[in-house]
């Protein structure tokens, strides 16, 4: 009896995997289609543009070409780094390490875990709520949210490439200081004890 159950279980698991893989494939195809459509669209626009403004076309082309080259240089690497950290640093790890917080170590961890490239902002909010429920301090959670939002490592690479190292370094420093101040102000003014009752 149990053997039969097991087989059935395995079957349903495999089916689920299959369905998931199919969904992924479908999305992949959709994205490829969208990319091709975008290419055709801009191809037409540029042809029209060239026809009507032949004297401005070379300037447009060289400008576009410059940015295209820069993107090809950095984007694949940045995407690979993001993919790798998605696999190796599951969000459950973030929760585990931010849950217990000795004051300084907790803040350091909040900054460190926030800079890891793991997912968009709307994933961070549920994690933050879970951390508050687990009695992490509000300042740590706010620091984590702030760093997660604006100081991600692969994005910094893009920023340095397109805007400049000095700008990136200054923005990193001032943003980090601001996040700490915001976190302190919020911890002083908001009482998290009633977090569970309010939400």
């Amino acid at each position, binding site marked *: 009896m149990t053997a039969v159950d097991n087989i059935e279980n395995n079957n349903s698991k495999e089916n689920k995997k299959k369905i998931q893989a199919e969904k992924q494939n479908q999305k992949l195809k959709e994205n490829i289609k969208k990319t091709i459509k975008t290419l055709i669209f801009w191809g037409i626009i540029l042809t029209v543009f060239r026809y009507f403004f032949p004297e401005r076309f070379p300037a447009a082309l060289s400008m576009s070409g410059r940015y295209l080259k820069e993107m090809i240089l950095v984007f694949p690497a940045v995407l690979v780094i993001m993919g790798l950290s998605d696999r190796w640093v599951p969000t459950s790890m973030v929760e585990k390490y931010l849950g217990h917080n000795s004051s300084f170590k907790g803040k350091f961890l909040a900054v460190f875990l926030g800079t890891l490239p793991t997912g968009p902002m709307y994933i961070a909010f549920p994690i933050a709520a879970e951390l508050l429920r687990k009695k992490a301090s509000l300042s740590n959670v706010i620091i984590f949210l702030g760093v997660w939002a604006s100081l991600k490592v692969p994005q910094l690479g893009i920023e340095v490439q397109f*805007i400049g190292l000095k700008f990136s370094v200054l923005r990193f420093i001032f943003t980090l200081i601001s996040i700490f101040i915001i976190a302190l102000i919020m911890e002083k003014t908001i009482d998290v004890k009633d977090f569970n009752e309010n939400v």
Partner: protein
Amino acid sequence: MVAAVINIFALLLLFISFLKSNKKTKGALKIALFKGLGLAPQLISLVALIGIVFAFLPPELIKEFLGGNFSLIQVGGAALFGAVMMIPSLIALPLAGSLIDAGASYTPVAAFITTLTMVGFVTIPVELKELGKKITIYRNGLALIFALVIAFMIGVFI
């Protein structure tokens, strides 16, 4: 130079990851490919638009609106624009770079990037649901104010 560092770093990580787990590395590469294809249409449009817009827009116009010395209206406008927009920062950063190349000041660009990433009018419903009214209002409000401070400081030091 920057590109070389990033690429070497990525290759190094990839190599280590490959040594540790073949399966996880393949999964990571798949995620990268998916993300890349998801971003591709926007990136292509951005590249084409930059070319067309800058072929027409005289740099003086960008300088007039986004250049010059620190002005509260200009920087505040950039900050508000960043707060309401929902652009992935991987797209917004090259765009910001192109504006600076064309003569925009660093201050409005810094304000724009800061609010774009820290303040999210579009994600406020999610934040309200997860963290409550008080935390949401304080966090977004303070981030908006500090975006101006960050922009001002960058303007001073750069």
